[in-house]
């Protein structure tokens, strides 16, 4: 498995790394590329609803999207070839995340020898109106 991830990373195929993760398939996480680079997508699925009243997506899956975006961007932007281990994750919920596809982009703020600090932001229709933002630390060494 480690070799598979290494080979995919060398080939620049982050989407295929995402697809190796069972949880990603279970909730509908995908990695795509737009004109600004890598985007992690949480496809809308009825099973991701966390609030029946306003039909909002569960905060836990939004946290997972931001964590996944942080992980994939970390793999893309650094030399690491293993799935980084998460140390902590802090999610700010900014707006109701409604029944539609949700997108996220991660940014490595600081990469140390053993720890990386990554930020991620999620949006739906308009990237200027984020629905959630997170910062996280990962063990990479």
């Amino acid at each position, binding site marked *: 498995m480690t070799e598979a991830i290494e080979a995919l990373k060398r080939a620049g195929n982050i989407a295929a790394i995402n697809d190796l993760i069972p949880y990603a398939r279970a909730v509908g996480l995908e990695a795509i590329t737009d004109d600004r680079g890598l985007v992690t997508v949480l496809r809308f699925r009825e099973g991701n609803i966390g609030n029946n009243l306003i039909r909002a997506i569960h905060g836990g899956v939004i946290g997972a999207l931001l964590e996944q975006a942080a992980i994939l961007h970390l793999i893309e932007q650094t030399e690491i070839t293993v*799935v980084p281990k998460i140390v902590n994750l802090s999610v700010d919920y900014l707006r109701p995340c409604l029944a539609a596809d949700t997108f996220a982009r991660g940014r490595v703020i600081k990469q140390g020898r053993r720890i990386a600090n990554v930020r991620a932001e999620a949006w739906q229709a308009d990237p200027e109106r984020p629905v959630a933002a997170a910062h996280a630390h990962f063990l990479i060494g």
Partner: protein
Amino acid sequence: MDAVCPIVGDPSTTSVWSFAVSPLKQPPDIPRIVEVFERIPHCRALGMKVVELRYGQGFMTVPYDPALVGNPTTGVVHGGVITALLDTLCGLVVMASIPQRTALATLDLRIDYLHPATPHVAIMGSAECYKVTDSIAFVRGLAYQETFRDPVATCAGTFMLGATGFTAEAAQVRAEPAGEGMGP
């Protein structure tokens, strides 16, 4: 294995954090809160179950499922499972600590992953609402497997009470073309 984490016990003697909420005029309807929880699609998809929910405290489980693995090399579940468990549990505990029918929105949730969860073992969650103000509720919790003395993760969250973007009326407004009632 400890059957029940002491956080779920008599708050006056076993609580880790002091819970200073005055008795409510309209006490929460706990069976109704659990009923609402049981209809949440994502909680059903993950197989979450409420073990106990009472005023200010709650205890929940989520089973191990190979389909929810986040690290295919080790078989450890994705952090999203723990985030969903703790977010749900903290929300339920807040609902069980405030007057009936108050709209609720998670403001933030911070999770520290103390060690990877052991594959093939269920994860339990325990949480406590330790302060409620007019507009904010403060919650802490932990996720563990064999014993609460060795948590997989700890969390701290804040919830906004009376969140206008999270009511049935707001959903109605959004459904109409000019709907812009976003934000807590």
